[in-house]
């Protein structure tokens, strides 16, 4: 049985209490995307400013409200992607979601065979502090709280790419 300390690691509580990159960015050039978790009312507002020259995240700001997991995950995501090239950001999204879903499928008793996929997704990606969120997967109903920020980021990337196309 997983204890709450597995879920609420100190670094998560730290990001929850002192979220990084909170605020707004002027739109445009930044792109604004809102993400909702209708189940629990978590809300993430993401301002993503992509530099088309370098194809990298020039700046990122976050707003919104919700539980500690959703808000800490948002804060950690913002810190992880700021200044990073978009190609790396996309890899990070895949790696993070793989980290969440591999454990989800393990919980559903689908065996250990998914490990190689996880290894593939994680190859060459440094999750750093984000690894603290892996305890969330032991609490299946909270996975959506952790992935909300990342789905919102994915949407922002897609919309930015469309706008530039």
């Amino acid at each position: 049985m997983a204890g709450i300390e597995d879920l609420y690691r100190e670094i998560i509580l730290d990001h929850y209490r002192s979220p990084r990159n909170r605020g707004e960015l002027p739109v445009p050039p930044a792109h604004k995307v809102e993400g909702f978790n209708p189940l629990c009312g978590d809300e993430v507002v993401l301002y993503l400013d992509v530099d088309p020259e370098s194809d990298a995240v020039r700046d990122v700001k976050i707003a919104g409200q919700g539980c500690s997991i959703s808000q800490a995950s948002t804060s950690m995501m913002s810190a992880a992607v700021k200044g990073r090239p978009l190609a790396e950001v996309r890899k990070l999204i895949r790696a993070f979601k793989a980290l969440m879903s591999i454990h989800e499928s393990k919980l559903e008793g689908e065996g250990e065979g998914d490990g190689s996929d996880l290894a593939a997704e994680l190859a060459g990606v440094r999750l750093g502090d984000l690894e603290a969120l892996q305890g969330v997967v032991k609490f299946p109903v909270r996975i959506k709280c952790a992935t909300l920020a990342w789905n919102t980021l994915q949407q922002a990337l897609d919309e930015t790419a469309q706008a530039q196309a």
Partner: protein
Amino acid sequence: MTALDVATVKRDFPILERKVNGKRLVYLDSASSAQKPIAVLDAMDDSYRRHYANIHRGVYTIAEEATAAFEAARRKVARFVNAPHAEEIVFTRNATESINLVAYSWARANLRAGDAIVLSHMEHHANVVPWQMLAAERGVELRWIPLTSDFRLDLSNLDALLDGARLLAISAMSNVLGTLNDIRPLADAAHTHGALVLVDACQYVPHVATDVQQWDADFIAFSSHKLCGPTGIGALWSRLELLEAMPPFLGGGEMIRDVRLDGFTTNDVPWKFEAGTPAIVEAVGFGAAVDYVTAFGMDAVRAHEVSLTGYALEALRDRFGESLTIYGPTDLDRRGGAVSFLFDGIHAHDVSQVLDEDAVCVRAGHHCAKPLMRQLGVPATTRASFYVYNDEADVDALIEALAKAQKFFAV
């Protein structure tokens, strides 16, 4: 009136013997769904083991027994809410379906563009969305009774809201705030303006003696599962003449008298609204649940909940003071046993997660009442709710677990 002996009552509920995380299960989510006593489980088991067949069909013994048990359950439910006729109880899937039945059958046959329906800000989505769907389809206008600062209906503008309205659809008890609404004067006011009255009595019927004749409403929706009965069955009460005038809702077997290639004629009320094989065994369980709570006496059930709610409100205030906000009336005469609250700076889901460590089951979220949550200006609350099997020790366990959560998330 004999007071409830909760220690004995607890023994009627096998699930309460369970341990979760090594701790005694403290179930405080009955407003969401109540636990099931042995009496209900046994009645359903016996029904499947000894009397099961489809109803209203076969002429063999067990089919007749099944039919008799199904219709006996209808009579029990009718008596429970003091309905004048058993045929005024339509079995549905749940209270939500009961409300949808009225929206699809009565409302679509009677309401035109420009007609108004009056709702309140404290309604559950089940009593909001069916009317929004109708509004979008038919151009019906929705009007809203706002709330006062002490979490009651603000009736200061009621006459203007009801002017030209065809329906008042209102909750008898808020699933979030616990507020009890005084239905009779609301029904009188609505009738004066020529509007019918639908009561969402989902949270009320299991907890307070209900008399549909005293309310003088036109439609009343409630469910079995909040009354210690099974899921999958609910009820709609309405007056016979109203049900008879309404077109059918779902089409299929049972709801017909005759079918020809060029059309059909409908069965009598209530079977006209019960298309397809119904939840037969669930109806038997519903009846058994009615018997179970009736044996306590609904006055005793209510008295127990008033006392326990009072204890909980006081304990929450004493222990947490200003750091915890309670959303709901403080007057025990005007509220039921659903207590919503929020810690300053701690999200309801985080609180609920920590409570689970101590096997304390509460609901966290928007409680399917997002318009109300927006009025309150909060994304979610934690809600503890009580029933016959809860006692002060359960409230004490809640308070201790909450103290742990507060300490854990101390900002």
